[in-house]
């Protein structure tokens, strides 16, 4: 048979790696398209509460975040230990929320503005006084869809 022809040895040609960069670029573009960048750098330590009745937020581009919590330990010398509000990258007060909401709204399509959701990432040790103030401001800004951000807790655990 020709398969076992003696005497003639074939040398395996080296694999052509010229298309390797293309493969990697393909992966790269896939990740660039499917994910969005981490926009904010959080200066507060936020431990969201744990709940059982959890729901996922659908569209990330329609969600704005409000963070409330104590400043990170390395920032406490400057900003103190009282709970603070963070919008995007800066510390803010409740008065800034309305401007924040309207600027977030402007970045969206007109059709999507109605579905805008505000996710409240609030530390579980925060007092409700701050939270109520934020909710009142959101009502005034008519951003009524909110989400109390929380982590999953398996049911039965207490």
């Amino acid at each position, binding site marked *: 048979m020709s398969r076992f022809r003696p005497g003639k040895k074939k040398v395996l040609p080296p694999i052509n790696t010229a298309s390797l960069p293309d493969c990697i670029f393909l992966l790269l573009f896939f990740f660039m398209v499917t994910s*969005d960048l981490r926009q904010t750098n959080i200066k507060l330590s936020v431990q969201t509460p744990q709940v059982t009745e959890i729901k996922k937020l659908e569209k990330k581009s329609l969600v704005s975040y409000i963070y409330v919590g104590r400043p990170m330990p390395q920032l406490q010398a400057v900003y103190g230990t009282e709970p603070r509000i963070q919008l995007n990258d800066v510390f803010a007060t409740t008065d800034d929320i309305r401007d924040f909401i309207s600027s977030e709204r402007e970045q969206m399509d007109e059709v999507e503005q109605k579905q805008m959701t505000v996710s409240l990432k609030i530390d579980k040790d925060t007092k409700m006084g701050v939270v109520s103030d934020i909710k009142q401001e959101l009502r005034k800004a008519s951003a009524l869809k909110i989400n109390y951000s929380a982590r999953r807790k398996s049911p039965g655990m207490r």
Partner: protein
Amino acid sequence: MARRELQPINAGSMADIAFLLLIFFLVSTTMDVDTGLPRLLPPMPEEDQSEDKSEIKKRNVFVVLINKDDQLFVETEIVDIGALKKLTKEFIMNPDDNPNLSEKRLEYVDYFGNVMVTKGVISLQNDIGTSYGKYIEVQNELAAAINELRNDLCLQKFGRRYNDLDPLNETEKGIIEAVKKVLPMAISEAEPNKTGGS
């Protein structure tokens, strides 16, 4: 002058560069999905129209109060958080037609026909000194109570759990809407109590 022959560019390191970029994007992107309890805030009342005139009977209001020391009161009595779910379910369903619990009215709902729908409203009140963790815990218990009732109803009627229904499917979306009508999640949040303090 001797002309130099053009050397081909070595593209061997192209893959490394691409890998570097790839790893940068992998690190800097967020894959985690935000989860939580979605809620709808009531719209701000119009300027010219004062307080909501529609009176709700006392028996139809289920008062849940958390004070500044994170103690839970249900209808002026201190209760443990573990008991809240059962009390809420009892209030909404009112199986024995207890005159102290919520009233019901007959209403036509798709898929169900004429059913008794509760008139009960849960009034969640808190102090400015209440901790957010406790507040969410109570919100969660109330949501759990209503969710369990909806699950039971769906299992009874359609043989499927409410949570397993797919909102993207047209008929199942209709069922979800109908179940929401039969068992509405009516949680009203009063304006915060300014006394007490932190």
